C-alpha cells in the first residue's frame, strides 16, 4: 500500500542518475529577461516534459540545453548547465560536438529537401561517423528502424523526405537526430503540427526511445505530457514553479498555479 502512494514513487525515482543539471540559468533577449534563474535536474533515460503557458520560457530553456540560442545574436545565457561532467557554456566546449551529443527535434517537421537516405546520412557524414558506404547504410537503416519508420519507407529511400506525410516527416526528423547517436534528444512541441494518429505514433516512439536516450520534451498538450513523461516541470513567467514526477504533477500538484494551469483555470 505504501509504495502505491505518489510521494513514495517520487522518492524512488530520485535515485536515478542525473544527465543534465541546470543551475540558476538566466536568459536575456537584449533587455528583456526570459528566464530568471532556473534550476532543473534531468534524469537519465527518462522523459522530462516542460509545460507552461506561452512565453513562459520553456522553449527558451530547452534551446539552452544544446545552445541553439547561440544563433540568436541578442540572446545571452547566464548560470550553469552541466551535461555529465562538462559545463556546456564553457568557452572550451565546441558547439558542434555538443549538438552531436544533444540532438533536437523541432515543432514543424523540417526534413531537408533531399532524399530520405540523405536526410539521415547527413549528420553522420559531417561528423565523420561512418567509414564507408556500407557503414553509412547500416546507420541509416538502424536509425529508421529505431524511429519505427523503416518498414514504411524501405522501398523509397531515394525519394525526397519532404514527400512523406507530416507524421512520417517528424519521425524522419527523429531518425535524423538518432543517427548521430546523441545522449539527449530535445523535442520542441514535436506533435503540434500532427494529427492524433501521427501524434500517437510519435508518442509511442518517444516511449521506446526512453530506453536508450534521455528525452526532454516541450509540449502544450498537458495530456501529452501526462502520457509520455516520467517527470514534469511547470514553467511560469520564466521560472520553474513546480517540478516532480508526472503522476504527482497531474493529480496532486503542490502549487496553486500548477493546479490552475493544468485544470484550465489560468489567467
Amino acid at each position, binding site marked *: 500500500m505504501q509504495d502505491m502512494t505518489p510521494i513514495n514513487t517520487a522518492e524512488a525515482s530520485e535515485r536515478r542518475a542525473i544527465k543534465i543539471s541546470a543551475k540558476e540559468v538566466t536568459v536575456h533577449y537584449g533587455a528583456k529577461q526570459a528566464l530568471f534563474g532556473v534550476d532543473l535536474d534531468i534524469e537519465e533515460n527518462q522523459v522530462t516534459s516542460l509545460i507552461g503557458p506561452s512565453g513562459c520560457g520553456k522553449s527558451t530553456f530547452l534551446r539552452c540545453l544544446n545552445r541553439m540560442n547561440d544563433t540568436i545574436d541578442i540572446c545571452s545565457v547566464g548560470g550553469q548547465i552541466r551535461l555529465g561532467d562538462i559545463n556546456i557554456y564553457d568557452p572550451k566546449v565546441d558547439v558542434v560536438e555538443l549538438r552531436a551529443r544533444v540532438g533536437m527535434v523541432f515543432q514543424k517537421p523540417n526534413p531537408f529537401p533531399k532524399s530520405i537516405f540523405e536526410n539521415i546520412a547527413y549528420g553522420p557524414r559531417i561528423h565523420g561517423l561512418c567509414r564507408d558506404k556500407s557503414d553509412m547504410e547500416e546507420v541509416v537503416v538502424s536509425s529508421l528502424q529505431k524511429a519505427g519508420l523503416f518498414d514504411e519507407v524501405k522501398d523509397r529511400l531515394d525519394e525526397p523526405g519532404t514527400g512523406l506525410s507530416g507524421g512520417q516527416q517528424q519521425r524522419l526528423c527523429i531518425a535524423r537526430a538518432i543517427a548521430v547517436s546523441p545522449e539527449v534528444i530535445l523535442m520542441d512541441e514535436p506533435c503540434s503540427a500532427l494529427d492524433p494518429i501521427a501524434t500517437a505514433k510519435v508518442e509511442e516512439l518517444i516511449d521506446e526511445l526512453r530506453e536508450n536516450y534521455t528525452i526532454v520534451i516541450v509540449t502544450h498538450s498537458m495530456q501529452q505530457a501526462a502520457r509520455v513523461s516520467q517527470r514534469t516541470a511547470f514553467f511560469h513567467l520564466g521560472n520553474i514553479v513546480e517540478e516532480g514526477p508526472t503522476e504527482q504533477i497531474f493529480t*496532486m500538484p503542490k502549487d496553486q498555479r500548477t493546479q490552475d494551469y493544468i485544470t*484550465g483555470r489560468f489567467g
Partner: protein
Amino acid sequence: MSDHIVTSYDDDLKELAGKISEMGGRAERLVEDSIAALVRMDMVKASETVEKDTIINSLDQEIEEKAVLTIARRQPMAHDLREIISALRISVDLERIADLGKNIARRTLALEGKKQPKQLVHGIEHMAELALTQLRTVLDAYTGRDDVAAIGVWHKDREVDALYNSLFREFLTYMMEDPRNISFCTHLLFCAKNLERIGDHATNIAETIYYLKTGLPLEDRHFEENEQLDLD
C-alpha cells in the same frame, strides 16, 4: 478556487455536485421516512418509501452518465478529475444507502399486524438518529468540501458500530426469552444491520471527501491519528 477559462466546464462540475446534493437529500429523507414508517408501523408511508427508491436509482444513473461525459469531453486533471471521480463514488454510496432505506421500509411491510415491544423500536430509532446524523454531517461536509468534518464523521462511525453491537445483544436476549419474538426481532435486527451499513457508507463518503480535498486516501492518516489517540 478560481473559475475555469471554459465556463461550461464549471457548469458541468456544478451540475454534478448539485445532483449529488439532491441525491443525498433524497436518500436521507428516504431513510428518515422508512424509520418513521417502522416506528409508527405506517404501512402507507412504508410502501410510498419503497416507491421513492426508483427516483434515486435514476439520479444515480444520471450522475454516472454526466461524469463519464465530462471526463470524455474535458479530460479533467488534478482536482477536477477528483471532483468527478468523487461524484461517481458518492453516488454509488448514496444509491446503496437508499437501497438500505428501502430495505427497512420493506421489512416494515413484512411486520404488518405483528405486536412489537416499544423499547426495541426505540433502540432502532436511536441508532437511526445516529446514522442519519452521520449522513447529514457527511453530506454537509461534501457541500462545504470540509475534510475536517469528514474526518470527524469517519471517527464517529465507531459509535454506530458500538450501538449496533449493543442492540444485537439486546435482540439476542429477547429472542432467548421468548421464541415468539424471533421472527419480529430478526426483522429488526436486519433493520439495525442496515442502519449500521448506512453508517459505513457515510464513512465511505467521508473518505471520498478527504480524497477529493487532498488527493490522498484517508487510511494513512487514520493510522497516524489512531496512534496519537492511543497515546492520549
